[in-house]
Each structure stands twice: as structure tokens, then as C-alpha cells.
């Protein structure tokens, strides 16, 4: 187990280093001067020079890369060009929305998808299966922003029982904050649940045909015990993989949903920073998201090991 962990951790660090270099270089190549964007069209050259110096843009690229990396390593993400506050502050505020939203959405989608997928697999070819498959078809086919607008029109505009958008903030209390997250979470969870349910169904179907399930039934386990204790557990690896990917996506890939509900999440921060040429925020955020993906993958690897003891290298089960 220790060797397995060490291998995974080294891979994690190397991936992050390579990512940082790519991110930095891409930002260097981008045209446009952040100072000019900030000061607009009436700015004078001496004003621009003063601001560039203030922002540290006059230093050579290599020096800025090392400074940036050193800052990241010591937890100092730098100061946003446009907002003028520390990037960590910005990210922390946004995480307060994006993390709970992603968690609620993934819980919702898992809670919906796994039972539905297992049900469809267990009742293969029958009405329940057809129903679940129909639902997943719809869930995949409907664009989530369209579904989101539908939810807003129904719950926000017509019935007025939930807010049509915005985020109340946690300091307003848990319930008001959660209330603003319900519709976005549902809009995000549904398509994800549809995908996850299909993966679960096909994976469980595959394991149901395996010898060990028949053996389990033969040694006297009931249908459902064999299903849950043997088939489902063994079918979980692809499901967990997809969940890992979905969670990384939910953290930052939700910009469309964030726009529809005008939520101040991480996705919109990235978008805004790119539009305003706030390069330091873009760099930090892309790194952070890369780190999130890598860490989630690492956790998924660990989860494999928990689910399937054979994957814990370095130990023999013979």
C-alpha cells in the first residue's frame, strides 16, 4: 500500500509541475496588456507605465515564473490585477459556493443514478428497465441550461417558491443559502445522473453474468443479496471513475449554469478573469483546477484500491 501511495503521489507532483509550466507559457503568449485593459482608452502612456510597474509586469518572464511558483508553493497566490485583493480570498469566496454546489449535485446524482441503474439491470428488458432507459435518454438529450431555464420559469417566476437565481451566501443562514442552490443543483445533477445510471446499468449487467454471481446464488444467497453484495460491488469501478470525472467537471465546468442562475462560482470567476485579462487569477485558477482534477483522480485511485483489493500493489493475496 505504501509503495502504491508513493507512486501515485510522485505522479501527482510531476503532473502539477508540468501543468504549471504549460499554464504560465500559454499566458505569456496571449496578446494584450492587462494594464491597458484596466485603464481604458483614455489612459496616458505614463499612467500605463506606472501601473505596469505596480503590477510587476516589467520583470523578465523567467523571474516571474519562479516568483509565481514559489508563491504557489508557500500558499501565496498573489494579488488580482483587477479586484486588487488576494487571489486566495477570491477563490475562497467562490469555493464557498462551488464546492457545496458540486457536492450537492454529485450526491443528488449518485442517489438517483445508482438505484436506478441497478434496478434497470436487475429488471433487464422489463418495464422498469425501459422506463429508466427512457429517462436517461431524456436526461442526456436535454441541454442542462434549457432545463435550468425551465426550472427557473416554473419554480422562480410562476410559483415563486424558490429564488430565480443568485446566491444568498452562507452568512445569511444555512436554509436561505441552500434554497438558492436547490435549482442549480437539480439542473446540474439530472444530466449527470442520466449518464451515471447508464454506466451503472451496463456495468452491473456485465457482472451479473459472471461466474461468481452464479456461485453466490448457488450457495443459497437470495437474488437481492447476490445482487447487492457481489454484483454491485464488483460493478462499482467504472461507476467511481465516472463520478470522479463528473466531480471535477462540476467544480469548474458549470459556467453555463452559473450564468443562468447568476451564481458567483469558480467557473464565472475564470471566465471573468479571462475577459478582463486578469492573468494572475487565470493562472492561479487553472492551476487550482488542474490540481483539483489530479487530486480527485488520486482519490479515485485510492477508492479503486478500497473496492478491489487486488489493485493494492505490493501485497500478495495468493
Amino acid at each position, binding site marked *: 500500500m505504501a509503495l502504491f501511495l508513493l507512486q501515485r503521489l510522485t505522479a501527482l507532483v510531476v503532473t502539477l509541475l508540468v501543468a504549471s509550466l504549460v499554464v504560465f507559457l500559454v499566458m505569456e503568449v496571449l496578446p494584450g496588456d492587462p494594464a491597458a485593459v484596466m485603464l481604458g482608452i483614455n489612459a496616458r502612456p505614463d*499612467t500605463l507605465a506606472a501601473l505596469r510597474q505596480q503590477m510587476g509586469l516589467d520583470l523578465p518572464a523567467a523571474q516571474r515564473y519562479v516568483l509565481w511558483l514559489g508563491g504557489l508553493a508557500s500558499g501565496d497566490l498573489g494579488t488580482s490585477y483587477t479586484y*486588487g485583493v488576494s487571489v486566495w480570498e477570491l477563490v475562497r469566496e467562490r469555493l464557498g459556493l462551488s464546492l457545496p454546489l458540486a457536492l450537492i449535485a454529485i450526491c443528488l446524482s449518485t442517489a438517483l443514478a445508482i438505484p436506478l441503474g441497478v434496478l434497470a439491470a436487475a429488471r433487464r428488458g422489463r418495464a422498469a428497465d425501459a422506463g429508466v432507459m427512457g429517462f436517461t435518454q431524456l436526461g442526456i438529450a436535454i441541454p442542462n441550461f434549457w432545463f435550468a431555464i425551465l426550472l427557473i420559469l416554473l419554480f422562480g417566476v410562476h410559483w415563486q417558491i424558490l429564488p430565480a437565481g443568485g446566491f444568498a451566501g452562507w452568512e445569511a443562514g444555512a436554509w436561505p443559502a441552500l434554497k438558492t442552490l436547490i435549482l442549480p443543483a437539480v439542473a446540474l445533477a439530472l444530466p449527470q445522473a442520466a449518464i451515471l445510471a447508464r454506466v451503472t446499468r451496463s456495468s452491473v449487467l456485465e457482472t451479473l453474468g459472471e461466474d461468481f454471481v452464479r456461485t453466490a446464488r448457488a450457495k443459497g444467497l437470495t437474488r437481492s443479496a447476490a445482487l447487492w453484495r457481489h454484483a454491485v460491488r464488483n460493478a462499482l469501478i467504472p461507476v467511481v471513475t465516472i463520478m470522479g470525472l463528473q466531480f471535477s467537471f462540476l467544480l469548474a465546468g458549470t459556467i453555463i449554469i452559473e450564468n443562468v442562475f447568476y451564481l*458567483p462560482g469558480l467557473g464565472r470567476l475564470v471566465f471573468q478573469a479571462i475577459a478582463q485579462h486578469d492573468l494572475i487569477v487565470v493562472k492561479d485558477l487553472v492551476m487550482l483546477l488542474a490540481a483539483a482534477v489530479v487530486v480527485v483522480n488520486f482519490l479515485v485511485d485510492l477508492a479503486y484500491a478500497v473496492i478491489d483489493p487486488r489493485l493494492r500493489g505490493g501485497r500478495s493475496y495468493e
Partner: protein
Amino acid sequence: MKPFIARACAAALIACGTLAGASTVQAAKDSLVLAMVLEPPHLDPTAGAAAAIDEVVYANIFEGLTRIDRNGAVKPALAESWTVSDDGLTYTFKLHQGVTFHDGTAFDSADVKFSLDRALAEDSTNAQKGLFAPIASVEAPDASTVVITLKQAAGNFLFNLGWGDAVIVAPESAATNNAEPVGTGPFKFDRWVKGDRIEMSRNPDYWGTPAKLAKATIKIIPDPAAATAALLAGDVDAFANFPAPEALAQFEGDPRFTVKVGSTEGETILAMNNGRKALSDLRVRRALAHAVDRKAVVDGAMFGYGTPIGTHFAPHHPAYVDLTGRYPYDREKAQALLTEAGYGDGLTLSLKLPPPSYARRGGEIIAAQLAAVGVQTKIEQLEWKGWLEQVFKAKDYDLTIVSHTEPMDIGIYARDDYYFDYHDADFQALMTKLEATVAEKGRYAILAEAQKKLAEDSVNVFLFQLAKHGVWNKDVMGLWENSPVQANDLTEVYWK
């Protein structure tokens, strides 16, 4: 059992509905949620060009010596009164007394001197440093008097002091105003949830007439569909400038809302690079002016909202001269002029478009109109930074569409390095004369002459004045219909 559950649910729903209704009614009396499309990058109006900064803080949190009111007139603000010397070079301001900043520090002439000196300084990051260029010195002989001496007369000086970029800040808080603005205005800043909203509340120690609202929240909603839903759901009370003109009809038909289409300082123009060979020919520039059907552009690109203009000047200003008839839409005339200039066989020009919809949608329409008279355009869509670099700085363009939103900015045509590449000694002389004239009547006469000169020279194709589409709850009173400066002045807003 079943009917009971149904009834219980219905009762619960009704209770929820009443509670929600009751809370909005109570909250509605003295708090307002106003929505904006763009979030300000920071909140210091003295260190950034973004209009969104002024739209939050101007007149609400920060004040200058003078201020611009809803009609564009110059009014006293922190300066109670002033006198101007006969040569127009010395301005003596008498300041209000007993004014404090929101953090409790006292306001006096030293703060004025500090603010103006800071804007003028070598390392100043003021986006409109040019406003302060005429200043030779700022003196504070006593706590309530400020004497500003100018290098040369500047007729627009009092107006310029009313810009958001010229607000008075305190030395104690100047460095942190970008995140926590501290001003002297009727509202004080409470907090900023970045990406979502900015909250402010009534300043109980305000020196002037206190604000009627106890609390104001400015919500950021970039998406037009979300903006519509938020208004319909009652989550926001007002949009000072609604981003989706195509949805206005829906609100006009809804008795819960007031829709006001006002004007802005945004002269939207088809700018021409007067330095390019073809466009340096007056006949070609006039031909293009004849070839564009302004009405069709306003209808097609702006859903009919916008006032056609014939020169670079806001129609709501008293000195405005209507020159829209100077170049009537006339294809034959345009073609004749082009032939005369030697481009009878056609002409190809680049048309570089920044992101706003007036430019992107207007660009397609204008390209079609120009093609009809034999002028082909190569459309290139740019992001703002690309536009600034290529068009504005490097003058690497033939045509572009952009809205000049700064108030009273006719003077840009006298700038030698400006991106139109228009150099005219007569016009520059007019602007010098304008600077030296303080009396209103004389200024208006010069402004009229300047407007006619620009139209005669057909420097750009003047399209239309950008409209401001206000949508708000019918019970909200006192919001600005027009925007003579970039501002959402909430000082006189109240609920009926």
C-alpha cells in the same frame, strides 16, 4: 387520509406564499435591489476606466467638489459655492463644513488637495488623467477653502470636476478604496460578495439631504435570460440598463413594471481611419455617410431603441445641433461620390468590430448597406483587448463601430494621436477657444460650430445615440431615466 394530506400541503404552501409575500412587502419599503450587467473590477473610481465602477459608487458613496445631476447640469456637491476669476484661471471653492468620511475622519480642504495632487502625480493611475491636465496648483489656505490655479483657461473645468474620476478621497483610505470604498456620500459601503452583489446602507451622518433608502443592493446579472427571470420573479427591483432590448416589449405589456427608454452619452459611430488612402478623401467619407441608413441600423441592431445623430454630440444636450439631414440615406449619391473619387469599380475596407451587440449586429447591417454601393468590407470580430491594441493604439483598421460613452467628449477630435487620425487646424482652434470660454452662451455657440465642422468634414459616420433601457418595479421612483454620466444615482430613489 388523502384529502387531509392534500389540504395540509395546500395550507403549508399558502403559508409559505404569504410569508414570502409579507417579507417582500416589508422589505420593499426602504431597500432596493438594483441589477447591473457588468461587475466592477474594483470600487475605486479614481483608478480605473470601467464604467461599472462609477455605476456603483458615483454620487452614492463618493462625491466630488461638483456633481452632475440627472439632466447633465453641474451642481455643487462638496463645494458649497465657487468663484472664478475674470481671466478664468483661478477657481476658489468654498467647502461644506461638518462633513465626515464614512470612517469618521473629517473632510476638509487638505483632502481636496490630496485627491487632486494624487490624480496629477507622476505615478498616478487615474484613467482620466487628462481631466486634471490644466491644473497648475492646488492650495488650501484654510480648512474650508480650496484655490485651484490653472495653466490655461478650461471652460469645462467645473464639469470635469464632477466626473467619477475626480471624486474626493481621504489620505487614510485612498489605498484601500478599491476593495473598501470610504467616501463622503449618502450611502456607505457595507460589503461586496464578489461576483454576486455589492451592499450599501444609508449614511446616518450624511451632511446633506439623507438618502430615502435605508439599504441598497447592487446585484450582478450578466445573462439576459437570467435578467428577465430575475425581474419577473421579483428577485431584483430594477435594471437601470436592461441588457436585452428584445425583451422590453414583454415588460412594457406588464402592469407591474415601468419601462423608460432614455439616452446616454454614448455616441455610436462608424469610425473611419482618416489616415488611410481611400478614407483620407472627403468624397469617400461623405459617400459612406450617404450609404448608411441609420434608421435601419437602429431598427435592426437595437430593436428600434436609439436616436439617430448627425455629429458627435448627445441630442439631449442644450447645445445640440440636429445634423441628421446633412447626409440623407442616398445610394445613388454615394455611388456618384465614389466614382468621382476614383472608386467606381469598388473598394475594399476592413471593418473591425468589438464585442458589444451594437457593433456586432450593427456591423452586419452596415456591411450589407456598404456592399450595396460597391464598398466591400472584411469583417473581423475582436475582443476588447484586441480592439484596444489593433484599432485604438496601432490604428490598424479602416472602419470600426464603437460607442464613445464619455460625456462631452467632442474634444477627442482635436487630439493629434487619436485613432481617427483626423488633423484639422480649424477644429483644434475651436477647441482651444472653447477651453478659454467659461460663459455658457459663448460655449454653446462654439460647440455648435464644432458639431457642424465635424459633420462637414464627415470625419466618421455618426450613427445613433445609445439608448438606456430602464426597467423597474412601477412603485420605484426617482431612478435616472437618462445617464448624462455613468452613474446609478440612488440618492433620490424611494418606494411609492
